[in-house]
């Protein structure tokens, strides 16, 4: 471990705030790139479910393209 104490690890010789701010942005971008596709997927599954529910209700044969 490069730093001798955990407090020193947080302070990082005065540059700690910048380093941790940068890594916070990094974490935010990663999380956004995980949450956004999950919400999109839920929306897609929802619209597919609604589509098939209507298709079954009118019991048309599903058109295959």
């Amino acid at each position, binding site marked *: 471990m490069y730093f001798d104490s955990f407090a020193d690890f947080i302070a990082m010789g005065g540059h700690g705030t910048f380093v941790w701010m940068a890594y916070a942005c990094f974490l935010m971008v990663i999380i956004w790139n995980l949450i956004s596709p999950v919400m999109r997927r839920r929306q897609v599954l*929802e619209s597919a479910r*609604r589509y098939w*529910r*209507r298709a079954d*209700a009118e019991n048309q044969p599903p058109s295959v393209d």
Partner: protein
Amino acid sequence: MGNSSAALAAPCAPVRAGDPLLDARGITCERGDKLLFDRYDLSVKSGEIVQLAGPNGAGKTTLLRSICGMFDAEIDTLIWRGIELSSPLEYADELLYLGHMAAIRPHLTLWENLSWYTCLSQCSDMSKLPAVVAEVGLSGYELELASSLSAGQKRRIALARLKLVDCRMWILDEPFASLDSAGVEMLCGWIQDFVQRGGSVVYSTHQPVDFANCESRTLDIDQKPWGYNSESSSGSKGESFSEPAR
């Protein structure tokens, strides 16, 4: 102006069929340089269907819009349920106007469109919403965006408002446009039982329908656009050329 209707009785009070609802005398409309109507009279009794037939550009839409306050027509006298009013907007909350465009917001879902309409007028309640949507035949589409629906389905959403809001008079501008045969049947059934319950319907159409068991009248609007017009009484035709009196 504005749509205060304090002078009138509660808008959704029931009424006997037959007594006069609207009596508009001396309607004069000009659109561009065409004089569409010159002192035209229109009277509608409650429990009656008035169909406006006529060629395109004869002024059917303009007449409908002027009696519901959407067109700046000069009306000499306007009597609504026996009370003289200055502008049609004053009885706006007792009538339902479905324009040529299906007034649907493409970016909202069907459910949001209809619940927005219910929150616009007092005498309509949200509880009837699911039943009305099912009756209109769009039961699976509540959460679909209106932009993804077809023109006929949008027209059905607009018609669903007829069931949501109970009022005295329906003014419909070519309601059968872009409706399939089932839709036309459904709408005719609705019109009949609305009229039997004492409401009155004025609508413009290209294929007049004869309603069996209720009182219906067809007005033939074929005013010549360049100023020849009939006598002031509604419906009859004459060739007398008269200066559009102001």
